[in-house]
């Protein structure tokens, strides 16, 4: 094998180390798991611009500043899943298929499928029984839970969707897109031209 001079070999070794260190830094800064959000970001996440009707709206600046973590971050989604059971969502919504409250996986969203709508529903409550959680959960918890609920209703599972729980859950795990399997075309579609499939 060809022998390169010592200086060349040392320089290439140093170069490799620098490149690796930079790669590690870029990687580490990519999607850090934050266990406690700084207060300014907490406040910022509450700053959603709702329509006058309160149905939906625009996400806050903080959401974009953080890199939109709540829709696809695996850690945030799995935290959302745990919050779902910790805050008793299942009492009305069951395992996601609904009960006293509406289902999340039949393809129908009363206030639209947007993340901000879901956040508003959890934070401010909705008529006919949905309580407001703004005094019970922190802002980032509400976003984590909303992200999880949105992913629950997705027709194709995201790579970062959580797996099954260690319990007797009757629906397929979130990473197997239960909404695609359990889609409910409804009794009479209002717009038959849209078709019955998701």
């Amino acid at each position, binding site marked *: *094998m060809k022998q390169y001079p010592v200086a060349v070999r040392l320089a290439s070794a140093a170069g490799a180390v620098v490149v*690796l260190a930079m*790669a*590690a830094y870029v*990687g*580490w800064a*990519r*999607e*850090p*798991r934050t*266990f406690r959000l700084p207060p300014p970001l907490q406040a910022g996440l509450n700053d959603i611009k709702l329509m006058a009707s309160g149905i939906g709206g625009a996400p806050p600046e903080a959401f974009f500043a953080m890199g939109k973590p709540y829709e696809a971050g*695996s*850690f945030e*989604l*799995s*935290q959302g899943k745990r919050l779902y059971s910790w805050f008793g969502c299942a009492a009305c919504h069951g395992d996601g298929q609904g009960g006293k409250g509406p289902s999340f996986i039949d393809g129908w969203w009363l206030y639209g499928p947007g993340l901000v709508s879901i956040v508003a529903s959890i934070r401010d409550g909705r008529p006919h029984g949905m309580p407001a959680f703004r005094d019970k959960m922190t802002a980032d918890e509400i976003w984590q839970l909303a992200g999880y609920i949105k992913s629950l209703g997705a027709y194709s599972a995201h*790579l*970062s969707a*959580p*797996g*099954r*729980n*260690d*319990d*007797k859950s009757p629906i*397929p*795990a979130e*990473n*197997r897109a239960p909404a695609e399997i359990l889609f409910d075309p409804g009794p009479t579609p209002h717009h038959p031209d849209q078709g019955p499939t998701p």
Partner: protein
Amino acid sequence: MTKDDPILTPRDTDIADAELHARLMRTWTSPPGLWAAIATVDHKVIARRYIATAFVFLILGGILALAMRLQLSRPEARYISPDRYNQIFTMHGTNMMFLFAVPVMEAMAVYLVPLMVGTRNIAFPRLNAFSYWMFLGGGLLLWLSFALDTAPDVGWFAYVPLSGPEYGPGKRADLWAQMITFTEIAALAVAVEIVVTVFKQRAPGMSLDRVPVLVWAMLVMAFLVIFAMPAIMFASSTLILDRLVGTQFYNPAKGGDALLWQHLFWFFGHPEVYIIFLPAVGMVSTILPTFVRRPLFGYMLLVGALIATGILSFGLWVHHMFVTGLPRVGESFFTASSMAIALPAGAQIFCWLATIWAGKPVFRVPFLFVLGFIVTFVLGGLTGVMVASLPFDTQVHDTYFVVAHFHYVLVGGAVFPLLGAVYYWFPKMTGRMMSERLGKLSFWLIFAGFHLTFFPMHILGLIGMPRRIYTYQPELPWAGLNLFVSLSSLVLAAGFLVFFIDVVRSRRSGLPAGRNPWGASTLEWATASPPPAYNFAHIPVVFSREPLWDEKDALPVTSGLRTDRRELLVTSLAAAIPQARESVPEDSLWPFFAALATSAMLIGSIFTPWAVVWGAFPMAVTLIGWFWPKGTKEEMS
């Protein structure tokens, strides 16, 4: 036999040594160039790569250990976040066990076994090349995941339910599970090669009672790999199935069993300790006679102890699970069996002591490492007997006492002999001696640094410091000892630094070593240093356990192998009576492509189960290429 007529085919009989060398070099050497370097199937080249890669992983794992010691050096330190700390201790354990300890021991076997049994290449040399590429792929996968902040954070044992679908978000645990699959494929491949090489390719006359102890140790290790690794492959595959496609293997609510994971993991994990330790026993038993100038005391006893340890090692896995609430009978049985393994270990220690006692020791660096091994390993063995007893283990489980114990047995029992082995066989591998002065310096730094670092951990454990914590409060009485441990770890690191400086320096400008610089007795010293591509110009014939001591003038050799193609001698299992000349595979790129296809399939299967289906096609193509008939008839005679 007309085709193989010695008159028509060139044989190694009746030609001068220089001419024979030239002909064999033409047949056995790989051409220069990058692709040829990838295609090579020479066991020495692959083993050197394996060893170098494993030592790179040792350095990386050592840096992680220093990072942990920095974080723990004072209470409430904020150098490393808890999330990254979890990744770091998981990476440290996983890296040291799966990417350093097991591969480096197997790599030493890949280098030494064919030379010590007097053959020209390892059995299944292309599988050997495939094994290295798989190992490299697994290592890159783990370390790239660390660079991307998706490294496993579930401990090197990855207990469910923490690693399961409910509590292990993201792809971290999946990456761990597939990294396991990579390294286990590599390990199983090497194990099969070692078994076949030892059983069928020994030099004529090397009956089972003349096999060097190192070769025996590697043989037992290979069988341990073959029996233990399938358990962990099953475990990691079912874990990834649970996480990805929603199977219920570890879900108690649907008839699965969380404890099943621990049984499967430790059914592999305990023999794993001996997979690392037995080769070290072999190294010690080989180095020792050379430096006390007499044959090993109690060869039969030692080999018997090796085999007994290998068998017993499958009967003690439950002592890792004493606090899981198993039935009393089970706990008593595994307490007894855990203590029973101290018997063969004790027999080995006494054989070595007797060998030293009866010999005239020469205190060179490899011998110092052997002495360091004996002292350290005996200390670790004593705490091993302590934690083998259920009542004591219940008290110290998951404390730093256990951390101290297993570092004493793993570093003391495997790394010390390994460093000694590097000093001992470095001249054979490179043709140059390592420095005696730097070697002594690095030995004393490592020996002192090791004990100063790990002995206080026993005390830390006894005063209640738990494992895997990322920080502790200032009110707890651990700060002083932790700072001491962290400072001592710098001494240990300095020792390794000196060692690596010595390796790099000696590789370039060490004193030239002859064939047999230590005056050793085993066959690998009968050929040039470094050995030529064909290992031995003539396959030696063995009449005793110490061929180079008993045949001082000239080693008896065989002849009659062909020189125009790669051939070696197949002998019978027990008595090593020559049975056949067998042709050996040539260099090939297919193992590399097969490893690439397998890697793509395994990495894809982290994300979608369909990768197993679609990934099978490229794998099938590469395997068809690998096993495509050669055109020339396979001939044996």
